[in-house]
């Protein structure tokens, strides 16, 4: 398993979308989210420019800030962060091109929540990276082609 969790949140701590690929209690999820914010917050300004990497406990986290939305993709320390970053870039590309056509922001996130969930479902499956090709995901989201 490569991915531990995908968390989309705002700078003020509101969770827009959270997907955990391990069985965790609500309390464990809350502790994890808190640690994630505490350990990455010094890098948020830099994350507006390019993706950032941070590690804490036994996790590696790649994240980016787009407008007010922070997207965190966390993997296990033993795995490598390069594939996580590739996955995050694919996710951002899919979000930008298909899901949030105007802009990735808190409001558009609420509006396009189902599409975002579907995109994540196509990209990450049970903690395994299912797809890294943004074009394929876009095609699937648009229900285009592939009919046998």
């Amino acid at each position, binding site marked *: 398993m490569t991915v531990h969790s995908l968390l989309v949140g*705002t*700078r*003020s*701590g*509101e*969770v827009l979308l*959270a*997907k955990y690929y391990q069985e965790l209690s*609500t309390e464990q*999820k*809350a502790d994890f*989210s*808190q640690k994630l*914010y*505490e350990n*990455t917050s*010094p890098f948020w300004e830099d994350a*507006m*420019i*390019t993706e*950032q*990497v941070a590690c*804490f*406990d*036994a996790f590696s986290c*790649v994240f980016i800030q*787009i*407008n*007010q939305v922070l997207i965190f993709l966390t993997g296990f*320390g*033993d795995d*490598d*962060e*390069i*594939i996580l*970053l590739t996955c995050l870039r694919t996710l*951002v590309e899919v979000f*930008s091109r298909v899901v*949030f056509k105007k802009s*990735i922001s*808190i*409001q*558009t996130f*609420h*509006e*396009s*929540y189902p599409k975002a*969930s*579907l995109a994540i*479902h196509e990209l990450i*499956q*049970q903690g*395994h990276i*299912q*797809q890294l*090709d943004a074009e394929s995901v876009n095609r*699937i989201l648009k*229900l285009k082609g*592939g009919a*046998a």
Partner: protein
Amino acid sequence: MSTDISHETDCPHGLIIESNHNGRKREFGNERIWVRVQEQREQKSPADVFRTPSIYTIRAPSLPMQQSPAQQQQSGGLQQASGERVKEEDGVIPSTGIDRSTTVQAARLFHDATPRTSKVKKILIQILYLISNGENLTSKESEGIFFGVTKLFFNKDLNLHRLVYLAIKELKPAATDVIIVTSSLTKDMTHKYPFFRANALRVLSQVVDESLFQQVERYFKSSIVDKENEVCSAGLVGALKLMRVSPEPVKRWVSEIQECLKRSNTMCQYHAIALLREIKKGDRLALSKMLTSLVRGWIPSYLAQCMFIRYIGEVLHMHTHQSDPDVEAALWKALEAGLSNINERVQYETARVVVSLPDKTRVLQAVEVLKTLLRSASSATRFGAIRTLCKAASVHPVEVSTANVQLEMAVGDTNRSVATFAAITLLKTGAEFFLDRLMPRFSTLIIDIPDESRVEVVQAMQALCLRMPARVGAVFNFLSTCLRTEGGYDYKKTIVDTYLSIIEKIPTAQTDGLLHLCEFIEDCEYPPLSIRILRLLADAASSHSPISKAADTATRSPSPSPSLSASPSAPHFHQFDPSKHIRTIYNRVILEVESVRASAVTALARMALHYERLRPQILTILKRCQHDPHDEVRDRVAMYLRLLEPATVPASQRFLLEDLPAMVARAKAMAAALEPAVPSPAKPAGAAAKPAERPAEGTVQRGLYRPSVVGLVAVGVLCSGVAAFLPSCFLSPVAIGSSSLPAALLSASWAPSLEAAEDGPAEPAFYSSMGLGTLFKRTEEAPLTEPDTEYVVRCTKHIFDTHVLFQFSVRNTLPGQQLRNVTVQTAPVPGSAAADLTPDKVGILKSLEPLKTADALVSFNMRPGSFPLVVFSNLLKFEVHEVDTASGHVQEEGWQDDYQLMALELSILDFVRPVPSWPTDFGTIWTRLEPFARKSKFALREMRQVAEAFRKVRTHLSMTADLADAPAASCTRLETRLAGQMADMRPILAHALFTVEEGTVTMQLEIRSPDAAISDLVLAAL
């Protein structure tokens, strides 16, 4: 509920949104954020938001942040949405939030015959949103929604169909309910759109259990050979999950999976190689065979190549002397090819594997690759490279030091995680001149990184300082900068620990270190740290006082006994001027909370006791504290003022230079120190037979006897209760060492007897009388009966050089029975290899009163140097005499009875004990014992944490570990060495690697002893 975000100046009545656990405000992203909650005025931090999962949305004009052109490009060059009015569509999350109960109620619509599709979609999305935000649906609610969702399969709307997949996955239906959706999902396997086929496989793999898997197995098998890559890929990922449910059917698909490696699709190859490895994981030979075949082939996908390299690393880690050198050579060749691969991700993976392997021959080559990767444009690649170098620096510092120039450049990296790791690596490998140049940059770096990274930098700094003591000044300057920066408790505690460690090991640093710490407590927000530093000051005063020096000279004796005037762990201070610190301590009395004030008062009192010239001034200060608002502080002041009266000072100096807990701890340490001199603590001659050696009334014997006195004081305090004993201890300390010590206390704890003791089993006082030889080891008590039976028996094994003694602690739980002539009939079970043991003596317990416990003994002669591994059967035999519970009369007429006990085993681990101190030549012995090494891997299923597993394994093995500190609870990988001593005084060594795999702790253990059979036995005993 709605919230409004604005800047601090715009919102004077706002509330701070973020606070750390101490309630101090904190800034996110260098920008202070204020939130005005209009409907509910309460402090809300991100942590609070997460703890009480919120579903409100922020009506937020975006924070006025600088947005660079690069960022605009990053976000796809799209227009900012702020200020735009965005139209709400069906299916969006309403800005007023979602009400859980309303949504659950609305889900009843799913059961309608012809529900409106748009309405159904909206409800489904809201349910998904609720689950994603941590809302826990009850099992009844989940079940109701799930059954409703299954009906939506018949809807023709494709988008709704996709949402149904998501909902089934999130609802996690019970195993009994899954069958409802199985047929719908299997029907989707023939859907005209391949991505519906793929989705059906994904959902099915997630919900199916072992019994249902047999019904759908063929769909997965056929998906793997499906011509559509996404279906194949979904089938492979599903199979990865199903390996945990039912591995056997998946293992039969190996040839189909291998075919997937030939596909052109990157992801198919990647998933296929991961699945193949999962199938062959437990079998090193099969795994190496598979990898060797892949070496000859060609893997076009770089992702698959990375996995291939990683699995090669796993196989090479499992190296044994039976490994085939040709196979290993082929695998190494693949690694060398990986280092020169054109893809930087493959290069990185290979370099990471190479530096983690024990073989050092190619480390330099890997470091060269990592140096190149440090110049990569991708921050993740740089991060990976620097993290690998940082890990490697602990094992291969010389090789990694060749990258010092690149590391120095990386300290200025825009990614601060990279910069932090570069700093830590340089501290591990860098030369002194690097340090001078980089120290100012480290001071800047430490301000902007998270506490966890700061802790690592500080710890690296400590290691460096101990390596280069001449640089202590620069390190202290850095640490004082760290102390001044804002940070959490753990961070500040690490800095204080570092100071203490350096002060202890580098005497010349003591004065500066103390001054820095005094400066820190002037503005310290953490009382526990202030208390520690105050205690350190008091210890410093004790260790350097003229009185202590005189006392030490007077009490110099052949027996090593720690000084009373400073705690055993306290460093010895060569230069200490107490007058410099009194002002700091007094400030604490004025300004701090009660716990710190109490400690400050104690520190002042101890200084007054030690320094006669300062006593009048300190007494004046203490008198001012008599009116402190807190009871504890006032009580301490009153006590110290009394003790510092001229008449009581001499006695106080002897006994009260510390507060009580430290004294008890010291007494325990002294008792432990005495143990070698007095083999049995219950030896009769030790206390009862040598009354002449006790000090006369009114005097305190110092030197050899002193530890005993303090030890007995400690026993008294522990047994009779602090409250009862404290006044006499404090006010008449001299009398305690003499005849005023409670005689009953002495006789109860120290008198040897095989008769029933008053409060529990007697101490093992029988060693000397039984002539058993030298004690090697005493095991923990093990039960031989259930805890709630009539007779509760527990056994302690005592291993001597020529004997084995079983001490059976028997408890008679029946109030109406007295047991007489109690023995335990112990005999090796037939078939046990008991040739090395011959029965010796049996200690009969003459009488066991009701509700009492006493010991019965059985000893065996043992051939010296042998390890008899025998199983014994045990039968408790006794004579029962009835007791009249009203009068206490015991009937003389009794009857014989017996009681079957559990079997008892002498295991190889009973003949192993921890080494008293860590062997400095561990490495040499380890290498010498290589021919007798035995290795095995254990899955410790009941344990979830590495730290817990480590503790249990160490205790079970009875060995000493090389870890100074207990591993942290969050630790997920731990490598440790263990050393023990066999009963024949030969060494036994171990190397353990604990890792967490899918939530279960796994241990790889290698045992080396002078005999391969012993290594095998130890592994078998685990």
